[in-house]
């Protein structure tokens, strides 16, 4: 191994090749802190060519690797491989090109999600995908895991906003996938690559589509005395033919947490809060708002607030976006799941989750993207109590199976990663998984690129109780 490391030392200066235990510690896990693994080393490339050289080194020495950005993966997707290499891409963090007229931005993988919108803002443009981790998560990681956010029903996920990528394949070859045009005339190779969880290679240059910023927002906060009523309200909005940019629900535990954390001014007695946001051209939004207000009024909300200013709107969203990390105030530890159910099954799913919560004796807070049926149950536990983590994991598994049984998915936006790979077989048949594996092995016969993720089987590192991610403790990242 030292021979191999010597070779790596010729590729990277000491400041960008980390091997000492103290240097490796921050890379041992991602936002799914229950998993931890010690890599052989971490390299911090600064160019495409360095990534190519690194991947070639891995192939030569048969060393598995994981490429990683800010490590905000909630599915353990950027968890290191024990004894493998971590390729940290945070130094490849440049905006390479911004063309407001063509509405595209070309970035390196370590560029931060929120910075795209900030760079585009002077031109009246923005980057639509808005995972809650957007102040720190990188575009490279967003691409690998096809990140979502609160606006997916109308605008899609990351995949719908990536136009092209320069990719280093697992054998070190470079290909260009996609083009500046959102249309293409052959198989959508880029569409396959996005969301492949790092198993098909490393993107070193990413072309993003920018959208014009909506002219007006209309943000409504409605309080209900039951979750079911909030769920019915969502169905009523959909039935009315409106297509809001976002529809979010929080339950009482999540409200309590958000209030304690950021004092968003939410009605504290509410059993459920619904946030609905319309956006678009002013005359259209004004007309839609009249319809929406009517629907909400009839939905049995006991209190309705409409944001009267940009500040009020931000405040409503602040509570929602902070809800995840805020739950940390209610419990020393928690697991977040992100299964999806058909919208009409939301009520059934929530009832079932409540029942499971009682059976397991663990509290579950719910914050979810109601518009697209994407649940986010937060399972609260105390890792210091023997067996509680295992029970929480078991409960999480039951929720995933429930989502599949209701016709949904085990993950809406967090990805399979390490966490949910055992549940892939619940959703896909052997033939489905075999086809995916064949594709993977055609691109990576040695299975070096993010080995051990997404597909069932292989060894998972032991579950360890380890508390929140350091960035999370500092309030920099949150889990969505």
């Amino acid at each position, binding site marked *: 191994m030292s021979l191999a490391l010597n070779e790596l030392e010729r590729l990277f200066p000491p400041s960008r090749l980390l091997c000492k235990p103290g240097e490796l510690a921050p890379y041992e896990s991602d936002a799914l802190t229950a998993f931890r693994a010690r890599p052989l080393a971490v390299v911090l490339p600064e160019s495409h060519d360095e990534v190519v050289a690194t991947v070639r080194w891995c192939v030569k020495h048969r060393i598995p690797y994981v490429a990683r950005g800010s490590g905000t993966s909630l599915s353990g997707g950027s968890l290191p491989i024990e004894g493998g290499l971590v390729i940290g891409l945070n130094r490849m963090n440049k905006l390479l090109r911004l063309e407001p007229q063509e509405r595209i931005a070309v970035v390196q993988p370590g560029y931060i999600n929120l910075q795209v919108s900030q760079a585009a803002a002077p031109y009246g443009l923005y980057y639509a995908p808005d995972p809650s981790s957007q102040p720190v998560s990188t575009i490279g990681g967003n691409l690998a895991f096809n990140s979502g956010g609160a606006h997916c029903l109308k605008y899609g996920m990351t995949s719908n906003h990536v136009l092209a990528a320069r990719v280093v394949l697992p054998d070190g070859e470079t290909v260009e996938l996609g083009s500046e045009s959102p249309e293409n005339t052959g198989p959508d190779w880029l569409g396959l690559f996005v969301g492949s969880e790092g198993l098909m290679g490393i993107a070193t240059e990413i072309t993003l589509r920018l959208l014009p910023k909506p002219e007006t927002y209309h943000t409504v906060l409605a309080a209900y005395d039951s979750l079911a009523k909030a769920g019915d309200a969502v169905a009523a909005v959909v039935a009315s033919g409106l297509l809001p940019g976002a529809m979010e629900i929080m339950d009482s535990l999540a409200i309590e947490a958000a209030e304690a954390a950021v004092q968003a001014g939410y009605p504290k007695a509410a059993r459920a809060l619904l946030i609905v946001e319309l956006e678009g051209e002013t005359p259209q939004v004004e007309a839609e708002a009249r319809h929406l207000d009517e629907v909400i009024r009839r939905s049995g909300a006991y209190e309705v607030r409409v944001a009267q200013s940009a500040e009020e709107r931000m405040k409503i969203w602040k509570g929602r976006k902070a809800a995840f990390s805020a739950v940390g105030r209610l419990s020393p530890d928690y697991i977040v799941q992100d299964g999806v159910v058909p919208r009409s099954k939301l009520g059934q799913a929530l009832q079932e989750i409540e029942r499971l919560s009682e059976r397991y004796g663990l509290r579950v807070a719910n914050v979810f993207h109601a518009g697209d*049926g994407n649940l986010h149950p937060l399972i609260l536990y105390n890792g210091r109590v023997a067996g509680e983590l295992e029970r929480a994991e078991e409960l999480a598994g039951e929720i995933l199976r429930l989502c599949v049984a209701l016709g949904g998915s085990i993950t809406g936006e967090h990805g399979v990663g390490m966490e949910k790979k055992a549940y892939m077989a619940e959703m896909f048949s052997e*033939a489905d998984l075999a086809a995916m594996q064949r594709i993977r*092995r055609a691109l990576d016969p040695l299975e070096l690129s993010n080995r051990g993720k997404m597909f069932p089987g292989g060894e998972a590192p032991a579950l360890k109780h380890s508390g929140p991610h350091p960035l999370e403790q500092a309030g920099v990242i949150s889990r969505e």
Partner: protein
Amino acid sequence: MTADVLYPTSPAEVQEAVRSHPRVLPRGGGSKPALSTPREGQAVLNLSGLSWVLEYDPGEYVFVARAGTRLAEVEQLLAQNGQYLPFDPPLVEQGATLGGTVAAGLSGPLRQRFGGVRDFILGVQFVDGEGNLVRGGGKVVKNAAGFDLPKLMVGSLGRLGILTELAFKVFPFPKATATLRIPFPGLEAALEALYKLAGSPIELYALDLEPPATLILRLGGLPEALPARLERLQLFLSRSGEVLQGDAETQHWRHLNQLNLGRGYLVKVALTARLIPALEKALGGAPRRYMSAGNLLYLAWDDPLPRLDALLQSQGLAGLVLKGRTDRPQIGIDLEQVFGRRVAAALDPKGRLGNLGKPYAAQD
């Protein structure tokens, strides 16, 4: 040349057909003959027998059907519930099917508002080159589990799998629409307006350019807001143009959907607006229409195809021939790369699928 034609009526029969024939070519409604005419040795899998709706609950915005289902049937069913396929597939009246639309990767003018077929496909079931029945994606509007095989199938031209089932996200169709036709004095002025609109918060369902210099814009939304928005649009462009509403409007878009642009080959080109000036100089009199802010071009080409092939190559563009006889429907720049070859080889190692003289997998 006569080819075997098979009429499978179930995914299992598609599997059987793939396993028992050395070369197969899927065919839906035959509305894109350049892609569905068999070559020597190919058996045709006519999928018209795989045509029925599997799931549709309007409240879910999800629609699932067998791949041979005709778009006309789908659109009718969706319209009964005020919904539509937002990527606006063309050739509805010519009998195009869901499977053929996905395999050819075709969207229409309304893609401008919410995206193309790749943005609305949720799930897929297909038979790979070995006869395996494979499913990818799901039947909910949001899903990140497993590789995105549904997107991979968009534009796959039957070479990666025979589509048997497809799931789409659908949206409510706007309650009212209006179309504005605005001629400009020249291409430069028209393109300036196109860019200005595309970068503005004005939400257009269609933003087309009809050469030499006419923009055709479609607004959609609530009827009570439409007059004010139309007026704002005219003010924004400082031009009033010609307003189409009611039947005249519906007819305009229905007619365009047939893509009866002119004689000769019908070709789709993927591009961006910045290439339009050079392309306009080169294309001469070929009838054509740019859609979705200059990202999509359909043109009729009545000259020898190699000329168009060379022309597109010189502009760095790729095109797809939909109608007209050719052995090589993919023209313009070569999009082949090692990623694609390896994925194709994984799904079709023996090269059973596909309509090119040489399948991807055999070219490595």
